């Protein structure tokens, strides 16, 4: 394997682990939250909401990891692409916040 291929394999390995464990962690939080709400007879589910938040952040973390990997490999073109994707996702968050306070869109 060439050095570049080794780097790629290493990056993919990290992404695989993070995504795998991250999914189970977030799912675990959701499960715990649901159990808590059930046993406490609560309608409010802040823990479940946190678990859902973790799930939503997982792909974002994945893009950040890719950005880091590209920078480490001095692959600035792809790093810029990853940064662009992150920016667009953040704009999505902003759009959500604005349509909540502004109302109507």
């Amino acid at each position, binding site marked *: 394997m060439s050095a570049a291929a080794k780097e*790629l*394999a290493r*990056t*993919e*390995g990290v*992404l*695989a*682990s993070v*995504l*795998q464990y*991250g*999914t*189970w962690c*977030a*799912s675990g939080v*959701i*499960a715990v*939250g*649901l159990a808590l*709400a*059930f046993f406490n007879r609560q*309608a409010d*589910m*802040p823990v*479940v*909401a946190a*678990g*859902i*938040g973790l*799930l*939503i*952040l*997982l*792909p*974002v973390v*994945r*893009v950040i990891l*890719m950005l880091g990997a590209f920078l480490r490999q001095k692959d600035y*073109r*792809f790093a810029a*692409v*990853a940064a*662009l*994707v992150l920016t*667009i*996702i953040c*704009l*999505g*968050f902003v*759009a*959500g*916040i604005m*349509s*909540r306070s502004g109302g*109507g*869109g």
Partner: protein
Amino acid sequence: MNAGFELWLFAVSFGAAALGGMLGMASGIFIVPILTMFGSIDIHTAIGASIVSVIACSCGSAASFLKGRLTNIRLAIVLETATTAGALTGVLLVGAIPVSYLYFLFALILVLSARQMLARRREPLSPKTDADAPRRPWQLDSTYPDRALGGDIPYQVRRLPIGMILMYGAGLISALLGIGSGVLKIPAMDSALRLPIKVSSATSNFMIGVTAAASAGAYFVRGDIVAPIAGPVALGSVVGAAVGARILMAVSGERIRLLFVAVLMILAVQMLLAAFGIDIMRGLR
């Protein structure tokens, strides 16, 4: 929110994901129709729950594709600029689109999914390469391992601009309907980009999570994601997908395929009726 309903949500999501897992197909397409038609849940809440489960399934299954060295992560990140841009557009539009249009669009996507499930896809015996094609500046060409052909098969990424446009559309629909849009991404990568089908599937699956996160973030912040509903649905989907992938099909694969198609068509008809039903009700007032 009673426990019985939560259990129902979990069971339904589990069932759909397990069915999809056995076939290697995503189950996100089922969630909104089932939640709206059978659970009487508001479509925007259903979309919120669905988009979360889509992220969960995408992230949960990404590892096996990555380890199989089928995912082209560089191509994915490039295409993701288009899908997330489409998702952002969808987020901005979703308030303005009448619900009946969403139902109609859903019916179309369900029929499209049924068609794809029925069409038999065969991998060409020789990979599509063009030795005389100019070297692209983006280094997206790669290889993938194919046991049948014995070794790493090189492939090229062709016609990226068309692919980007299609990905934009896929991202838009993903945000509007709360689905993964793999049903749109895979054919786009297959025909427009001329990728081997295994690479298309793996890379599409990889991209779905990021595309969904672009809209899910907005919906979460907006309050469209309701924890008592999205929680059981996401959990059921993750567990169901994991179980489904592990079950060796005791029933013939063909039967499950047909079951899948039947459910898709039934839901498509219901969504279509809902699309017109709402219009009719408005007309009667």
